[in-house]
């Protein structure tokens, strides 16, 4: 996803001279092509994320389209109040890119695990949160973010995630993408866990279940209608995300399900527990511990479907 992102940005910058790339001294082996092609529109601010976001606001106030780039935990948390006051409060066109969504840097422990950033960023008015699930969505989300006239937080994986979509879907900020239709259960996944969610859907299908599979690349504003529709038409909704159980996709879907006019129904939140992992290991290892393998996802959904309400 990261490679797709930078390629997309470079192509966009060829046409749009307002694009300006800032990095907090990160992106070795990734950002250099942009730097070499557009040296006047590239700035490494050093290890100074607050300053980077403030500078981006100043650039946006001057008609530029700044992108700030860092590891997701550093892009979101360290400059949080700068994102709030300088970018969101003033409603400026700044694209904040957090690389390494979820367990992308799992061996490096929790300082580098972006598992609680969505919860925090979701609280900010004006901020769009994009969380693409595969390289195709990463490209489309990047293009959508670059043409959006307001603050965007784009979080992307960096593990060479495979394409899940067979072709480019229609991508609009605030709209879910339905990959497959079905009537028993709706699986809504967001971000880099899309691959495992997709495999879980196949396992459930093999059990003769009719499964609707939805990707939710925009977390804010949420596509509420796709949730309401799922509540009207199916028996169970399962949300899948590589992030903490509070404040992410599951929480956002639960809010919609609490609306008075939405039928009451079951919701299975498949997410990480609300603690910082004490384990380290590969992304696959961490997913196996925290119930995010295709088999574990499918099993949890299957069990909930067969439980009496």
């Amino acid at each position: 996803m990261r490679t797709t992102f930078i390629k997309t940005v470079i192509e966009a910058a060829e046409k749009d001279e307002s694009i300006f790339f800032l990095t907090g001294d990160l992106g070795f082996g990734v950002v250099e092509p942009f730097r070499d092609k557009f040296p006047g529109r590239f700035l490494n601010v050093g290890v100074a994320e607050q300053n980077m976001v403030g500078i981006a606001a100043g650039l946006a106030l001057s008609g530029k389209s700044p992108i700030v780039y860092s590891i997701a935990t550093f892009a979101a948390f360290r400059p949080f109040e700068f994102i709030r006051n300088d970018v969101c409060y003033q409603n400026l066109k700044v694209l904040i890119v957090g690389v390494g969504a979820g367990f992308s840097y799992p061996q490096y422990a929790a300082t580098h695990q972006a598992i609680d950033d969505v919860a925090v960023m979701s609280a900010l008015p004006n901020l769009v949160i994009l969380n693409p699930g595969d390289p195709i969505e990463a490209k489309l989300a990047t293009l959508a973010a670059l043409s959006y006239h307001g603050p965007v937080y784009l979080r992307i994986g960096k593990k060479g995630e495979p394409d899940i979509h067979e072709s480019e879907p229609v991508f609009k900020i605030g709209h879910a993408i339905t990959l497959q239709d079905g009537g028993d259960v709706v699986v809504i996944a967001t971000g880099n866990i899309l691959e495992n969610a997709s495999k879980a859907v196949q396992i459930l299908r093999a059990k003769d279940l009719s499964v609707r599979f939805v990707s939710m690349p925009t977390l804010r504003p949420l596509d509420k209608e796709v949730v309401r529709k799922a509540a009207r038409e199916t028996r169970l909704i399962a949300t899948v995300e590589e992030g903490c159980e509070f404040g992410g996709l599951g929480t956002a879907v639960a809010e919609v399900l609490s609306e008075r006019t939405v039928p009451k129904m079951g919701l299975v939140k498949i997410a990480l527990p609300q603690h910082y992992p004490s384990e380290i290991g590969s992304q696959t290892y961490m997913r196996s511990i925290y119930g995010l393998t295709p088999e574990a996802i499918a099993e949890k959904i299957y069990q909930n479907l067969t439980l009496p309400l």
Partner: protein
Amino acid sequence: MKNTLAGLGSYARSVRKAIIEMATPVRSSHTGGAFSATDLLVVLYFEILKIDPARPDDPCRDIFVYSKGHSSSALYAVLSERGFFSPDLLKEYYVDGGRLPGHPVRRCVPGVEVSSGSLGHGLPMGVGLALARKLDKNPSRVFVMISDGECDEGSVWEAAMLAGHHGLDNLTVIVDFNKIQSLGRTEEVVNLEPLKKKWSAFNWAAREIDGHNLSSIYNTLKRVPFKKGYPSAVVAHTVKGRGVSFMEGQLEWHYRSLDDQGQYLQALKEVERS
């Protein structure tokens, strides 16, 4: 110089008077910090900044970032005095449904360039504004006023280091060094001295002035950039509450408002004579 020193002094008196009239009925804080910044603001708005109140969005205007937003009354008063909006509007400061918030909000009125209120944000934004102007070969300049307590914020020095490294000579910072921050004197809380040397050490061309001497302020600010290829820093020694004897140098006037009729009248009288 477009104005005489006496003319600038007269503007400063009007601004201080307006601050008293704004802050007293609504009992807002930060009159002391508004008075310490007044003379600097008057020279900036009447002599230094290339601005036209009739064209507040001119892309080639100089940009002034008022990072010490807590003393917003001084900014509104000087903008009004300079003709950005009618003095009548000053009555909308700090009141129910008013258009002039206790901390400036970008474009709440013409002339307010950025939202401020949280310290340590103005200089990073100023660096971005200055970088964009360099990139666009826009001759417009960027001035940022920060408070002394604000210099406790690490982000100020992140921005200072970067601006020095990139030689942003279209950027000027003015520190309103009134020596009193929220809970005490700066030398007691976190000693900032040697402040000018700190800016120099971060590769800024730095000068120290008396921030109430209109001639000195003018003669210093008209010479920015002090050195080609360097951002300019002006450490302006000021007095909290300047212009009203019982406020000068007093910590309490970081917060207090003129709620006593006798003090209100005395303050007005002293400001008119200042």
